[in-house]
């Protein structure tokens, strides 16, 4: 039965999984830590996939993706605080809390839009220079954005900004469902769909043409400047949305959370997954999130194991700092074994062509 139903099997399955998670959260079957990890995974997927558009598909080397996440996080937080919470500096709540579920998606859009504007900071220099010189510009942009935020005292400066919990509470007052989980899921799925639609269209393949031979692209009629603007702006817009979601999941933002280390995490996920592979980025983001969270428990377990085996002296404790030794080491090893990332530049359905029969993703 090669019917429409069969072709949507995996889509339906995915929808059911999402629904299942939401219900599980609703009935308090998931503990809040697991829930946070799930949401964090979604945010990382958006972050990695959006960076892949620039670093993977377009072949640029953007090292400052965290900066755009920062813009989105702060714009989202400020709007959210202005609208729904009373704050000494930003004034009383502007809107009644019953509007929160309707306004929140608009806040996400606004965050994406403003991050896209900051994307121009990188897109415009990319007309004239590329490669490692552009990499510097992105690093500098990352620093500039963070420094800018830290110098604006009205939004908390280096102390950070909080108050977004109000918005989430406002949403919960309207209907008691796991709102943030739903928003993160929607954000992730919409982001992936948009990226997939762009890169699979002839218009978006211009991005890959720039990567493979920019001269040929320009001379065969691809408006490379415009395509670059589109790629950089969409990429930073999605990072901005990821930032706004992040800010609301945690209820607190601090500019230093989006410094060059955050950008590094993004690059790790992109190159681990494979340049120019959306499914690679998704897998890498999941693996990375699970690795980071899993080691939180793995390290104490390893510690007691080593002590039980008398490998470690009794007075030495394997601390959580080892996490950030193990993770990079593991990644170094992974790169040695798969020097083109988990997926290379293929998608999951290129490796398993039969998958195409079960999924509709365009």
């Amino acid at each position, binding site marked *: 039965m090669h019917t429409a139903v069969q072709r949507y099997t995996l889509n339906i399955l995915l929808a059911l999984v999402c629904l299942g998670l939401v219900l599980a959260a609703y009935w308090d079957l998931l503990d809040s830590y697991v829930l946070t990890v799930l949401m964090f995974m979604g945010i990382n997927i958006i972050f990695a996939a959006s960076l892949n558009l620039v670093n993977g598909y377009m072949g640029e080397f953007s090292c400052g993706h965290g900066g755009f996440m920062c813009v989105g996080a702060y714009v989202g937080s400020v709007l959210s605080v202005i609208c729904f919470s009373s704050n000494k500096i930003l004034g009383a709540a502007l809107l009644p809390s019953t509007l929160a579920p309707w306004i929140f998606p608009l806040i996400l859009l606004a965050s994406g839009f403003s991050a896209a504007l900051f994307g121009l900071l990188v897109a415009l220099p990319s007309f004239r220079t590329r490669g490692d010189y552009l990499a510097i510009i992105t690093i500098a942009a990352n620093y500039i954005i963070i420094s800018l935020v830290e110098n604006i005292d009205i939004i908390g400066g280096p102390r950070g900004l909080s108050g977004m919990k109000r918005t989430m509470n406002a949403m919960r007052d309207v209907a008691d469902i796991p709102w943030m989980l739903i928003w993160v899921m929607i954000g992730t799925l919409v982001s992936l769909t*948009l990226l997939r*639609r*762009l890169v699979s*269209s*002839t*218009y*978006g*393949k*211009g991005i*890959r*043409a720039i990567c*493979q*031979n920019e*001269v*040929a*692209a*320009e*001379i*065969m*009629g*691809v*408006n*490379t*400047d415009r395509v670059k603007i*589109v790629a950089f702006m969409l990429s930073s817009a999605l990072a901005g949305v990821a930032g706004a979601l992040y800010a609301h999941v945690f209820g607190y933002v601090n500019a230093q959370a989006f410094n060059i280390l955050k950008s590094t995490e993004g690059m790790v996920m992109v190159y681990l997954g494979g340049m120019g592979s959306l499914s690679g980025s998704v897998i890498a983001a999941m693996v990375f999130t699970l690795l980071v969270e899993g080691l939180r428990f793995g390290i104490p377990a390893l510690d007691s194991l080593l002590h039980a085996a008398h490998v470690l002296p009794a007075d030495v404790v394997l601390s959580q700092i080892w996490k950030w030794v193990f993770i990079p080491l593991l990644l170094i090893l992974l790169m040695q074994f798969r020097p083109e990332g988990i997926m290379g*530049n293929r998608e999951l359905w290129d490796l398993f062509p039969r998958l195409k029969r079960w999924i509709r993703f*365009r």
Partner: protein
Amino acid sequence: MALLAVHNLTQRFGGLQALTDFNISIADREFVGLIGPNGAGKTTVFNLVSGFYEPTEGSITFDGVPTRGLKPHSVTALGIARTFQNIRLWNNMSVLDNIRLARHHWLGYSLWDALLRTRRFGDAEAGVDKTSWEMLELMELEAYAGEFPKNLPYGLQRRVELARALSVKPRLLLLDEPAAGLNSADVDGLIRVVDWIYSEFGISIWMIEHQMKVVMALCERIVVLNFGRIIAEGSPGQIQADPGVIGAYLGDGML
């Protein structure tokens, strides 16, 4: 009126005068050759015409439109397509995608159409698909539609590049040494294909080529360049007999 009119074109790179007072006028449906020793400035002429360089002096007019200040993609949009001396295909994209991408400028839908998958997007993509397959069939490449160009033999890569240039639906096709790197059997095939393109598509072709066999078989008029200056112009017969041209190729000592 001439299709392409180049007037007093001069190009300097720093202290190097690569091209001096170059004039040419190419009519509709004309096949012109551009020959000259290595480093004579032939590719510079093509780079100027296709908008890759901005000329130091002089003007280029295509179909009455001055091209100074236009980016290469806009020049292509006017109807000038080209191939490259060293093949420049997008090597990690299928041959079909290579052909489709040449329609980038004429897609007729916006970013939002692509993201929202509007009806306009669907129609436009279907149209591009159809014309691209037609082009593949015309150039007898449909068997390789799914292959990556890097995996194809050299002669086929040349043909893919030709097909890609033709997908732009140009009125003037610039061929930069299309026979470079081909063996003699492939060269004969190339002559046939280019000749067929010339009559089938009804376009003007301007070709840089070193192999006299190709030039003499195809060109109606030949321009000879040496040290950035035109030293001769005329029919193949005239050029073959021109002592200045022979001197430029063989060195003055031979005269």
